[in-house]
């Protein structure tokens, strides 16, 4: 009897914890409809007076890899950053039009940034591991969202590293500083770190541009493995990379989206003359 009572009171306490004003609210995922993860509608983006993106309309399918290609300065990275509102950090940046994820406009005033970025993770051009151990790097995200229990964290760290295919390499170095890893390992660690909060969408901003060919290959393999689990949007300078890994490809030029379609189609039979010129290497 007594034990039961104690158990009950514990449960009650936990319940109270969840219900109180100071309790952490759950972070709900986005609900995708009709297999569309992100929908961009008539979107313009300004840096001060400069219009960096013009009338972008595109839909990124769920659990597929969408690649964005185009010459430098065409706005593809800008668009990527605006998908989880990392462009908020850029001064004078303004977005008009609509970006919806699972039917919710992420630029609405009441939008929850923490929820957005938890569900839409990001991997940057240059690896940016925090100055802490491998373990703490990966546990940082889950800790941010209120997971304190060591056993749960251990589980998440192992699973994330396994998902990023680096558990075997790193399982004996979890306590070592992440800054001691090689560039390629650091970048894959950053991917693992992003996966640790179980995002639905992963944005990758030229994730292999700072890496050697072998590390690049490993990251591409990783994308392949993640293909059925989450939605990936990747910006790349490397057209072969886009052709190799993506399902959909969008071509950008001077702030406009010129063409978007199935990767095979875009690379073999582009609709637009400019796309063809770019792909065949006539400019860019």
């Amino acid at each position, binding site marked *: 009897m007594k034990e039961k009572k104690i158990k009950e009171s514990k449960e009650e306490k936990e319940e109270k914890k969840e*219900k109180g*004003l100071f*309790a952490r*609210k759950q*972070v709900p995922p986005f609900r995708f409809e009709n297999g569309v993860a992100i929908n961009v509608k008539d979107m313009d983006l300004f840096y001060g007076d400069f219009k960096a993106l013009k009338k972008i309309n595109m839909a990124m399918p769920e659990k597929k890899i969408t690649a964005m290609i185009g010459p430098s300065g065409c706005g593809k990275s800008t668009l990527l950053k605006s998908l*989880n509102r*990392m462009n908020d*950090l850029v*001064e004078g940046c303004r977005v008009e039009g609509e970006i919806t994820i699972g039917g919710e406009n992420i630029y609405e005033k*009441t939008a*929850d*940034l*923490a*929820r*957005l*970025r*938890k569900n839409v*993770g*990001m991997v*940057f051009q*240059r690896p*940016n*591991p*925090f*100055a*802490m151990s491998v373990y703490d790097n990966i546990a*940082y*995200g889950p800790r*941010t*969202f209120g997971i304190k229990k060591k056993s749960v964290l251990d589980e998440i760290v192992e699973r994330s590293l396994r998902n990023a295919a680096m558990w075997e390499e790193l399982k004996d170095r979890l306590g*070592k*500083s*992440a*800054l*001691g*890893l090689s560039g390629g390992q650091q970048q894959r660690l*950053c991917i693992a*770190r*992003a996966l640790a*909060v179980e995002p639905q969408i992963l944005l990758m901003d030229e994730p292999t541009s700072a890496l050697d060919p072998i590390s690049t290959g490993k990251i591409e393999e990783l994308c392949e493995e993640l293909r059925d689990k989450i939605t990936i949007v990747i910006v790349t300078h490397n057209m072969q990379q886009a052709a190799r890994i993506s399902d959909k490809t969008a071509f950008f030029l001077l702030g406009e989206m010129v063409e978007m379609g199935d990767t095979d189609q875009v690379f073999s039979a582009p609709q637009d003359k400019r796309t063809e010129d770019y792909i065949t290497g006539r400019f860019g």
Partner: protein
Amino acid sequence: MLLHKKKTEEHQETVAGADAPVCREEARRAFKLDGEKGAKAVFFIAAAFSVVAVFAIVIYLLVASIPALSEIGFFNFLFKNQWLPKFYEDGSRPASATFGILPMILSSIVVTLGAVVVGGLLGVCTAVFLVYYCPKKFKGAYTQVINLLAGIPSVVYGFFGLVVIVPMLEGMFGVTVGKGVLAAVLVLSLMIMPTIASLTKNSLEAVPNEYYEGSLALGNTKAQAIFKVCLPAAKRGILSALILGVGRAVGETMAVAMVVGNTTNNFPTGLFMPVATMTTQIVKEMGYATGLRKEALISIGFILLIFVLIINLILTLVKREKMGGNALFGRKLRTEHAEDGTQKPKSQYEFRRGGIVQEVLKYICMVLAAVVIVALVAMVAFIIVKGVPNLTADFLFTAGSSTDVTMPQLLVTTLLIIFMTLIIALPLGIAAAIYLNEYSKKGSKLVKVIRLFIDTLAGIPSIVFGLFGNIFFVAICGGRYSIIAGSLTMVLIVLPTIVRSTEESLREVADSMREGSLALGASKVRTIFKIVLPSALSGIVTSIILSIGRIVGESAALIYTAGAVIGMPDGYGSSGMTFAVAMYKLTQTGRAGDMEKAYAIAVVLLVIVVALNLLVTFLEKRIKRKTLGTTGTGTEKKHAHAKQEAEEENTEALEPLAEPAPAEGAKA
């Protein structure tokens, strides 16, 4: 009433109803948003504190000096050449009493200018030697010594002047009293030299190497390149170093008071004329002045503050690119045209070998750098040799009495002040730095203003803080000298150091770290506390150590706030002496045995400064290594790094020979 009731009923209904979770959710969201905003507000208040402090000091001193200024008359005060504060016993004053401070103002100016000319010359020459001519082997050690000397408290310099320079001058020039203008100039020069040298060194090192190479490529000698290209390129930095030196020299109190002679109403007409400067007059009379006399002293402090604010303003203008640029250093083009307006044909130019002046300058630099280092090292050695025998067990370990100064009393007082000051100043300073670096928009006017005020706060002389502390903190802490009043005064003094040092290390944290954290959905506050601040730890630790050094060496700001009572303090409410204050006091009593104790304290101060310096170097190295991620494999990494560097050097050396290499690579 009814309406109200209805509303509450409605409210209850919604809470109890099906919408409850939504409602709570919104409340929570509002609360969370407020948390973020609240944090920002806290950081902002901390940053604004320095602005408030500067205003408070200026306005407080102004208000406190208005009665005196109006009674004496502003121009009588500034330009009458007699300071004769006579009073009858009932407090009224005879017609012959005057409060003119012209001699003090002129003495301050003369001593300051002399010190900046001598100290500036020594400092700049030392820096040139250090950057361009010093053998690589000694460079590190020399830099360390200069940094160390910059940290030695001014009382120690004053003490050295009192026991070495003054007797030396008496011997060399055959004068009966060596104290006076020249002695003060020499002491101040030695004191400001390390600061000027280290700032000049920084700006010389910032000159792009291309300038030097470009100059050599035109056929210049090394000396020509240095003195005609590199030095002019760093002139802005050197100028601000000199102005900073002016600020320090004009505000210096204790070191000057020990060697300047302190004879009121003398004009600085000769090298050995004993005079009183504005700062020394304040520190000499503040202890017993009352009524109008005290107000007049505060007015002197106010005038001094105005002086320093003007110097600060000039410094800001020089530092600012737009203002200083060509307006200050520009030169008009003077092309010599022949009478008919065409330029001379080429054959008329004569090219001659030059550079003798620069060669001479080079040797001057080397000699002065050697002289400086010898003088300063001799100073330290002298104090240690004379002081160590005076470190008796009796002095070091007995609690002492109300008539005997002993080490434990000084140590306890100093530690109490350090503790209280840091407890208050550290959170304040770090929060201010966070606001300035993490929340402000680039180029925001508000932030510029706050930065300007923080710099201003850093430039205010400690005697002015002492005066402010005396009329403000002492008053709110119970009306008598107390350690808490001294600590609060020290908060204002160390705050700019903490803000600046922390801000600098926050700036060094890469933006990609912040982005990485934010992209994981972490809030700004969490990002700051979990990612940014830990990476900036080294800067914060450095600022703590620098602050401790400042507190240990401070005397002018403490003597009339924490007081100078002999005896073991029994808490923050009681008065007590720190090391530096005690040292000054002991040189002034003339009692047998006191001078020996001053020697002993000087040794202790030197040891503390050296220890703190070593600690900074050690911690910085360690933290750097830690953040570089080489825990455990530190030595390996170092070796690898060194190897890589060596390889790079090799390839550089081999470059002209390695031309066929790319072709081979292409084949492969």
